[in-house]
């Protein structure tokens, strides 16, 4: 088996093994389905409720991506401002770090007070979680080697030209690396908010399943979340590799 195939086949085999062990354990140990349903039961429930699950998954996806896009926008702006100016860096960076240390789940009740139950708090929570990694990675712009500045400066390039021709492209690998982190954070944020303050989305679906003691559906929601999380991360990891291949060559 080649090294590439190994990296796919091995984790897949472990996953299938775990699912089978789970199924076996539930049957052999006669575990109550309300405590731990067998994977087959979860799959059956997922198939039966495929329509609603798809609706809620779609809602979570849209919420996540809205928050994510806003976070990328603000993260880029903040990152470029911090990276481009020592003054802005000194003024804002400590505040940013302080803000980031607030657990964002604690902000959700406040958002609900302002915007009510629904999509808006979820989008905002996603946004709040996701902009920090983007801003911090883009801010690395500031650490340009002297020679990388001197070459364009000795051609009469303005600060703006150096920023555009050297600073921005050099930051791209870090920016794209931050996207996969940011999209995962946004996903966490939207699901947290949906769980407590929404009437749509997988987070909401799981909250409802829990209040009904519908363990099968709760596990189904979890499986969907796992799949979506891996997919989102994977998409941005692939984009990163494609766009900034030059950064990984050495």
């Amino acid at each position, binding site marked *: 088996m080649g090294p590439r195939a190994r990296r796919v086949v091995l984790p897949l085999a472990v996953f299938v093994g775990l699912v089978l062990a789970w199924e076996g354990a539930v049957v052999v140990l006669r575990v109550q389905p309300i405590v731990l349903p067998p994977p087959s039961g979860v799959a059956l429930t997922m198939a039966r409720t495929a329509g609603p699950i798809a609706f809620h998954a779609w809602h979570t996806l849209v919420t996540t991506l809205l928050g994510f896009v806003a976070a990328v926008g603000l993260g880029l702006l903040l990152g470029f401002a911090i990276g481009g100016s020592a003054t802005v860096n000194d003024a804002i960076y400590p505040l940013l770090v302080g803000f980031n240390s607030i657990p964002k789940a604690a902000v959700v009740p406040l958002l609900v007070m302002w915007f009510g139950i629904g999509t808006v708090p979820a989008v905002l929570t996603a946004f709040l979680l996701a902009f920090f990694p983007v801003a911090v990675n883009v801010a690395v712009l500031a650490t340009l*080697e002297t*020679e990388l500045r*001197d070459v364009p400066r*000795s051609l*009469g390039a303005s600060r703006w030209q150096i920023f555009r021709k*050297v600073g921005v492209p050099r930051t*791209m690998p870090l920016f794209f690396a931050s996207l996969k982190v940011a999209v995962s954070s946004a996903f966490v944020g939207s699901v947290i908010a949906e769980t407590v303050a929404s009437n749509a989305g997988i987070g909401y679906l799981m909250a409802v399943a829990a209040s009904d003691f519908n363990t099968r559906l709760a596990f189904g929601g979890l499986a969907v979340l796992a799949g979506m999380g891996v997919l989102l991360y994977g998409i941005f990891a692939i984009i990163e590799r494609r766009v900034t291949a*030059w*950064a990984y060559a050495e």
Partner: protein
Amino acid sequence: MDDERLTRDVPAVALRDVGYAYVTAGAVTQALAGVSLEVPRGGTVAFVGPSGCGKSTLLKLISGLLPATVGTIAVDGRPVTGPLTNVGMAFQNPVLLPWRSVLDNVLLPLEILRANGDPRAPESDRWRDRAVTLLATVGLSGAERRQPRELSGGMRQRVSLCRALIHQPAMLLLDEPFAALDAFTREEMWELYQRLRAEREFTGVLVTHDLREAIFLADTIYVLASHPGRIAHTHRVALPRPRTLSLVYGAEGSELMRLMREQIRPARETAA
């Protein structure tokens, strides 16, 4: 070039009592003091000396990237007040932009000059031919589409030289450009520099640790001393051109090398 008539008798670079000091943690450091010299148009000078003697600072002062604290610097008879655009620079680290192909790296100066409305940048449809020709001169035909990461250290330094020369600058400023290369590649680069200088008219200012390199390339070598950085000795290199390795490694070159080494050693000891 338009102002050739004007500048024929004026030295390419003239420094008068130039000094540079900077403040760190409240203390003033005098990096350079009382440096006066002239570089004739088309000549090459080299600065050698112990680490920390201000060689690289001198290069930045001449290019206008740093302002002199005292004294005057004139290039082509005009006082230097800000970064010059008529120079090409190359460093020990070739600092190619890794996201650009070899060709696009070489074209960077033209892009910037063109964007700033500089008349020396030709129409963009002529850029490619010029870059391809230049790359061929340094032995990089066919490498236009390659990425910097695919090149050896010597090849990268050749690309860096092409980038420094693509806009046909009047002056080439080199800060230990070949220091990171192996001995044989370095000697190839000396010969390349000599060939480029014969083909194109530029004034060269070289900072180097390598005394052989200075002897091979320069018409005049300034040996600097440190604390503060200043010119301690000046040597005219009388070897004929074009120079060969056997000439530089011969009796006359070796004698000059021995002499300069003696001059740098006490400076190193006081610096330490």
